[in-house]
């Protein structure tokens, strides 16, 4: 083994914040459906307990064995609207509480799947779930929700977007004492992936097996330092050289996820699902996608060139990661969650990064308007318009986009919203209104012509 390789791998863990950001066990709860809600909840809890009770302990054993930190242990379950139909919104709130209770019992920090997929239309259960979101997410600690409102095959369900936007406003009001933190646990998707391990949008979708372990790696710090070293070592660099370096670095980072995923799945006796390649930042210094962009020469994030730099980064990460893993899935790109990335938050605070530029950048990376704080008095229709724009990017480009918007009660543009921990803090960004009439038409934006692929 080459000395340089050994020292490079050591650096990843010692100096560059490389870790496994999340291991997420996906569990099907379809067999928990039934006319008796208490029985359904009990069955769901028993199934989760039987499959996931060793998730944390085995993960910690693996940490002791390999010395690779696993930051979060999480669960993703079948969208609740699929298996808890017929019990009304109050019944679905009870389901959320049951999921919260079992998550706490087995020691995981978030459980995703309080979800509905309504891109083409809503069932009664879907409507009930959307109605239950404010109460369910404000009264539970660990439950995360998501609603898929659009897809490249079905178009954009504007009625659902409006309903979710009203739910968001309600949820923000219910968690006003924490700057509307409840909304940080709710993602609105276009083209939701069925195997995403990252919260808050994780769910165990259609076509997934009974149970699967998915892994999300992290490595913004590793990528940044790799570019930094390359810049220091080479006087004449082209963007192609940098892309190659990112690709090779992404390969190494992804291999760590693949190793941990396969080994942990084997220990738990469950199938290994996918590695999500996404570069997931944290508010910590040296763990930022914004810092990578700076290292690429974008001194002010949001300046002209930011979208191209992000496109280069995302593409190189995918190319390196795809070869490193037996199965890549989830979101796989680069996250730009404003509050969770200190450099992005700073760029937004100083006015360099606007909401419109963020939206442009989301067309080339893996999520969307993520952890964006907006004024508390933003109307539900304006929020719906923002979400519709983001969905349009996803639908037309055949990619996942998502919104995690937080209308912070009582706060105005320029104020600061503080969520704490990995959720960080961010300035409240101004939203330009004036397009509300468009979404008030309601209905569904038809699927784009290139949906007709058969």
């Amino acid at each position, binding site marked *: 083994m080459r000395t340089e*390789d050994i020292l*490079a*791998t050591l650096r990843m863990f010692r100096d560059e914040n490389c870790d496994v950001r999340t291991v997420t066990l996906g569990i099907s709860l379809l067999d928990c459906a039934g006319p008796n809600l208490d029985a359904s909840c009990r069955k769901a809890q028993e199934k989760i307990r039987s499959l996931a009770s060793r998730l944390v302990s085995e993960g910690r054993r693996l940490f002791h064995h390999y010395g690779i930190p696993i930051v979060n242990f999480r669960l993703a379950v079948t969208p609740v609207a699929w298996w808890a139909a017929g019990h009304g919104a109050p019944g679905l709130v009870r389901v959320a509480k049951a999921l919260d209770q079992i998550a706490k019992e087995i020691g995981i920090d978030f459980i995703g799947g309080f979800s509905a997929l309504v891109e083409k239309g809503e069932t009664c259960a879907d409507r009930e779930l959307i109605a239950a979101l404010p109460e369910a997410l404000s009264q539970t600690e660990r439950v995360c929700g998501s609603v898929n409102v659009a897809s490249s095959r079905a178009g954009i369900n504007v009625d659902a977007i409006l309903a979710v936007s009203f739910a968001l406003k309600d949820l923000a009001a219910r968690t006003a004492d924490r700057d509307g933190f409840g909304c940080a646990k709710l993602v609105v998707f276009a083209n939701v992936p069925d195997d995403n391990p990252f919260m808050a949008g994780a769910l165990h979708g259609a076509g997934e097996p009974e149970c699967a372990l998915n892994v999300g790696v992290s490595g913004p710090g590793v990528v940044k330092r790799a570019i930094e070293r390359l810049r220091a070592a080479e006087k004449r660099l082209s963007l192609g050289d940098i892309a190659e370096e990112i690709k090779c670095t992404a390969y190494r980072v992804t291999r760590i996820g*693949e190793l941990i995923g396969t*080994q942990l799945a084997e220990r738990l006796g469950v199938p290994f699902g996918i590695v999500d390649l996404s570069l997931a930042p944290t508010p910590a210094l040296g763990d930022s996608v914004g810092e990578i962009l700076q290292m690429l020469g974008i001194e002010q994030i949001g300046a002209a060139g930011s979208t191209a730099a992000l496109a280069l980064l995302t593409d190189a990460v995918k190319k390196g990661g795809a070869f490193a893993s037996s199965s890549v899935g989830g979101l796989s790109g680069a996250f730009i969650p404003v509050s969770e990335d200190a450099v992005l938050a700073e760029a937004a605070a100083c006015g360099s990064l606007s909401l419109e530029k963020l939206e442009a950048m989301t067309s080339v990376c893996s999520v969307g308007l993520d952890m964006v704080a907006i004024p508390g008095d933003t109307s539900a229709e304006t929020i719906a318009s923002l979400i519709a724009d983001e969905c349009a990017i996803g639908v037309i480009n055949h990619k996942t986009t998502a919104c995690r918007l937080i209308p912070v009660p009582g706060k105005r543009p320029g104020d600061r919203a503080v969520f704490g921990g990995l959720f960080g803090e961010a300035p409240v960004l101004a939203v330009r209104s004036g397009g509300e009439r468009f979404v008030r038409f309601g209905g569904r934006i038809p699927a784009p012509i290139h949906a007709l692929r058969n």
Partner: protein
Amino acid sequence: MNASPALNHTQDFIIAVMAQDRPGIVAAVTQAVFELGGNVTELSQTVMRGYFTLILCACLPAKLSPIEIQARIETAEPEMALSVCVSPYNPHPLFVPEEAAGVYFLTVQGQDRPGLIAQITSHLASRAINIEDLYTKTEEEKITMIFQIHPQSPRSAECLTLDLEALACELGIDLHLLHQDILRATSEVGAIRRLVRRTQGRN
């Protein structure tokens, strides 16, 4: 070690050779082995600061004594001044790690000083940890060492992990332990399942 089919009544010998480096040493040694009726089955060599060292395993006629083999190789090219050591191969290893004990890489980085290697290796020895390979490099009084180590048991690996921080403090250096699987995963091309299985199989 199996004998070559062409050789009857053979025995394996381990031969170590050291000399000032120059072209032709490997040729001289292997030619001498060949002329003795032997066959080289494994060989590893390195050069450090102009000095050559080699260790090989050769299958030779059993009637030859280590002294005869040594003399033949040393006199093969007298101007090379080869220093040779020969031992009959003992197939029973003195160190047999437990199957579950993995291979690790211990990296050491810090200020060089006399006795540092002795201190670290004494600690490893006291934990029943075998050193399988060792690389050291000193630049401007900063030393980097990479030990490829094989603990006797998973327990001795755990003890080393627990000790590491205190040992680093005591010695005033940076110490880190990396499992071989991690390095194979990040440095080698191939399916992880296959790489790890191969590692575990070898352990």
